[in-house]
């Protein structure tokens, strides 16, 4: 799963640039879910910088790995990643959430090279990825199907239908990553609808489970690329993350699921990220 072209030399720098773009997009678009987007930036940086077999010049290349953002509300982070990776011009990001633009708050594939699936309602991408993975195996094609889910999204029963399906059909070409930041829309996961023992749940469904720090690029890469001992199982990576990661006052805050950084808030966020270089 080496990338065909790989302009990403420094993953930390790549992640920092994604964060900066996300903040500018959310600020301009007056949109929300900035905390959810920042939470997955390091995962995206590793996927698009080191893991996924993709070619920005051929976004529909048949043998590409398929990436699906199931938590579609964090679309800004994927748009920024794709643009920085060269799938489309960076200038396009300026349209995010603007009147008449195609970069919607929740991720859409229409007119946006590199997006496999439009989501926004939760619990949709894992079943679709499983279907694609089943078809790929029927055809003897070896690419992988990587789905990024939120933790709150695991409340949706459709994910567990798909979890049964993937294990039953031994879809080792499916990788689920859960952005486990422990916060959902109105409060903590523990207070809302408990997922723990979360790893055990996946394991009992027949998945191979790996748990990592979702902001540690080396560990993420290792978790996503180390061949499995049990080659007939789908893989889930529980990525322990911090919602709002990278902007101090957004970290672990439910409020920044909805708020738009403006004025001083925005300036401070940009300053923090620029200093992080």
């Amino acid at each position, binding site marked *: 799963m080496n990338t065909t072209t790989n302009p990403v030399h420094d993953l930390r720098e790549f992640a920092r640039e994604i964060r900066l773009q996300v903040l500018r997009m959310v600020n301009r678009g007056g949109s929300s879910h900035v905390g959810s987007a920042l939470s997955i930036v390091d995962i995206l940086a590793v996927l698009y910088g080191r893991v996924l077999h993709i070619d920005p010049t051929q976004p529909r290349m048949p043998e590409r790995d398929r990436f699906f953002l199931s938590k579609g509300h964090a679309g800004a982070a994927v748009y920024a990643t794709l643009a920085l990776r060269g799938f489309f011009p960076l200038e396009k990001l300026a349209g995010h959430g603007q009147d008449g633009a195609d970069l919607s708050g929740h991720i859409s594939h229409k007119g946006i090279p590199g997006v496999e*699936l*439009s989501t926004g309602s939760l619990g949709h991408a894992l*079943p*679709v990825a*499983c279907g694609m993975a*089943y*078809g790929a195996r029927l055809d003897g094609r070896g690419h992988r199907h990587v789905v990024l889910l939120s933790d709150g999204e695991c409340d949706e029963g459709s994910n567990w239908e798909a979890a*049964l399906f993937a294990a039953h059909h031994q879809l080792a070409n499916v990788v689920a990553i859960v952005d486990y930041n422990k916060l959902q829309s109105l409060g903590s996961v523990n207070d809302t609808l408990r997922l723990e023992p979360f790893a055990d749940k996946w394991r009992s469904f027949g998945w191979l489970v790996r748990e990592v720090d979702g902001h540690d690029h080396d560990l993420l890469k290792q978790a996503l690329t180390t061949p499995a001992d049990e080659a007939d199982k789908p893989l889930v990576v529980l990525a322990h993350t911090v919602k709002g990661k990278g902007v101090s006052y957004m970290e672990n805050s439910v409020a920044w699921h909805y708020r738009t950084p403006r004025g001083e808030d925005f300036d401070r966020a940009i300053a923090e990220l620029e200093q992080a270089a």
Partner: protein
Amino acid sequence: MKGVFVETLLQLAEQDPQLIVLTADLGYGMFEPFVERFPRQYLNVGVAEQNMMGVAAGLALDGRTVFTYSIANFPTLRCLEQIRNDVCYHGANVKVVAIGAGFSYGALGFSHHATEDLGILRSLPEMTVLSPGDDWEAGACTKAAAEHAGPCYLRLDKGSVAGVRQSDEPFAIGRARRLREGSDATLVATGSILPVALDAAERLARGGIECRVLSMPTIKPLDVDALADAAQDTGGIFTVEEHTIDGGLGGAVAENLLERGAAPRVFHRFGLRGGFATLVGSQAYLRKAYQLDAESIAQEVPARLAPRRPRLSIAA
């Protein structure tokens, strides 16, 4: 229509190795010949319709023609958002098949009465809605769905419905079939209640009222030309469907004719009024109980066609 559906599917699967059938654990005694011949083109996903529809979208987005199968409302309403978002928004080549149109499973109770599906499915962008009226139309619709690139909904009756006209007439999505001539009124029917409409037309003829009968195996896109002709040439339009009067065939006909400026002189929707069907029973029994039988229709039409009283003028 089950039989003709599976027979047609066998032919289609033979022609197209990229065709695959998904079932949500229903179709007992139905898919065995298919599985035997095309094991790689069949998959029982279990009792999980949301996942089935997502899997279908995934298979279709990478180039397959996918038929999803279940009964009554399970393959449609249970996973409606997957149909809307994953299938329709992506233009995925998925054919949603529901056996058990209307009161096909009448005795099984309200959960198994598929009586709102046409209205709901036809409101989805990109969706083609097929509702055959007899076995011949069912076979033709199945074939047409496979050949049509994009999402289709195929609503089939559980039982066999003898061909109203066995012939080699061409079938096309979006075309009405004119099965009887008459100028006093037009009965427009969709689904397996078609023979009831034809029976009603025969009864009306005995009383001197000659009806044109249109079968509408396609609800979307609707054959508005055939309907506008009927509105112009005949004394009124009566829609007949085993479905709520809201939003199905009757709704589609009314919307399209009014917008075309071709309002019929008389218009009435035969369908379910007044909420859920709480009675159970055979399809024939329930049709009679809810005034959707030939006798009830033949009684109602003349009353509606009778010259209307002049509109009262309201004094200022």
